[in-house]
């Protein structure tokens, strides 16, 4: 069963198609890498998937429905899209309280989450004093507020120190071990190769490869090699 289904998706900004007839699925219980160079259309796809942007054509559904139609979306989907999504004048704890109130999540969950992402000591400091890594941890705590079944993480390792990267990797593994699904976009291919079992590769808005990781990397030394082979082939085709 597919948790995420993107079908013939086109997203146009002005005269430029940033996502072009993109179709892929993410099976339940999988950890799927969403890979592409900068400007490949990953974030635009995720924004459409999460109901933050409307598709020009095609569809993107989560649990068989558009995100906006989900009942209690924060309970089903947790997403990290950008680290700078908290008011700089608010404390980390207050930011979580705002989102918890909006999502209908009990406030008592906040302290545990702050501890989970290693932000307890900085919980009452204003977000403007946070490093990028701390903002990333706060964004992750926000995504985890509703104990979601599906995690969608866009460049979650940006700004994280090595300890943070390892903790994130463990979190993704634990989430998958309990039956959860993860779609994670990242440029750190070596890092991401350690946790994913599938990958979707896009280039210039188009799908250039998808499937189980061992199939995609067959004939290549690493995920990185496979990624460049796929994207360079696509560049050659489009040229």
């Amino acid at each position: 069963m597919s948790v995420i289904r993107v079908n013939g998706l086109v997203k146009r900004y002005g005269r430029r198609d940033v996502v072009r007839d993109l179709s892929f699925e993410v099976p339940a219980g999988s950890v799927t890498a969403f890979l592409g160079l900068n400007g490949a259309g990953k974030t635009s796809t995720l924004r459409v998937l999460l109901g933050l942007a409307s598709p020009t054509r095609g569809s993107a559904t989560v649990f068989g429905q558009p995100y906006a139609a989900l009942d209690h979306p924060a309970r089903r989907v947790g997403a990290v899209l950008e680290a700078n999504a908290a008011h700089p004048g608010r404390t980390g704890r207050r930011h979580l309280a705002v989102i918890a109130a909006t999502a209908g999540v009990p406030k008592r969950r906040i302290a545990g989450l702050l501890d989970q992402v290693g932000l307890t000591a900085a919980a009452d400091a204003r977000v403007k004093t946070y490093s990028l890594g701390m903002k990333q941890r706060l964004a992750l705590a926000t995504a985890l507020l509703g104990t979601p079944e599906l995690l969608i993480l866009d460049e979650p390792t940006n700004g994280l120190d090595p300890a943070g990267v390892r903790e994130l990797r463990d979190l993704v593994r634990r989430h998958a071990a309990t039956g959860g699904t993860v779609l994670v976009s990242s440029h750190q291919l070596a890092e991401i190769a350690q946790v994913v079992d599938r990958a979707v590769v896009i280039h210039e808005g188009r799908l250039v490869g998808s499937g189980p990781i061992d199939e995609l990397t067959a004939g290549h030394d690493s995920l990185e090699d496979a990624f460049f082979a796929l994207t360079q082939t696509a560049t050659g085709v489009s040229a």
Partner: protein
Amino acid sequence: MSTVTVAGPTGTSTRGLLGAHWLMLRTRGGLILLALGVLVPLAMLVLVLLTGQQTFDVDGADLADPLINTTVACALFAPLLGAMIGGSPFRHGTIVPLLLAEPRRTRVVLAAVLVAGGVAAMSAVLYILLGSAVALPWLANQGVPVGEVLADPALWWRLLGSTAVVAVTGMFGAALGALLRGLLGPVLVLVGSFIVEGSVIAYVNDEWFRWSLWANLVVLTEPTAELSVPFWQSVLFVVGVLAAVVAAALVSTTRRDAA
């Protein structure tokens, strides 16, 4: 990052969404603006009383003048407060986690408008209480029969009208904040409309003041005044303009990409 297991969410609610907007206002900037919205009119009231710019008789409406005129000063801060509530999530990017938690955008915008109206009205009521605590003893000391004029219904109607105007301007601010996705735009629109409307209409034809938002807002604070516009018409006009701005904010927020 250790695992935490706590009972799951209970679901989104209107109360939760209103509470979230109230929480969002409680930044340093929001609290300073709230305090100024009460303290500046209070300072103006004290100045009016001390400089003797107001003469009083036993008519309740006259007694209400200094208090009501300064209450309207709350309406200068209410749009700012509203714009902060409606526009700040877009300005600071917090609209993304907010819409991920509550993707029904109309609810998010309506909650902002309601909270802005409620907070603005609260600030007006707080000012009226503080202003009364200052003004009434002073007036009693001047020999004004305060008890008698407090019984005059005109006083209460005007105070109610003033509070409504402050609430409405707060709601305008929030709707414009959501529509223009920021703080500066709504302020420029509101201040600009105040200046442009008054000067253009005064230059062209005074009769057109019946179609002026600001003139109609003044009528709400002064239903007994000899203006060319009936009170009920002003109420309809203001509600109509507010509904149009809120509708525009809802349509824009629903149709445009959130981020």
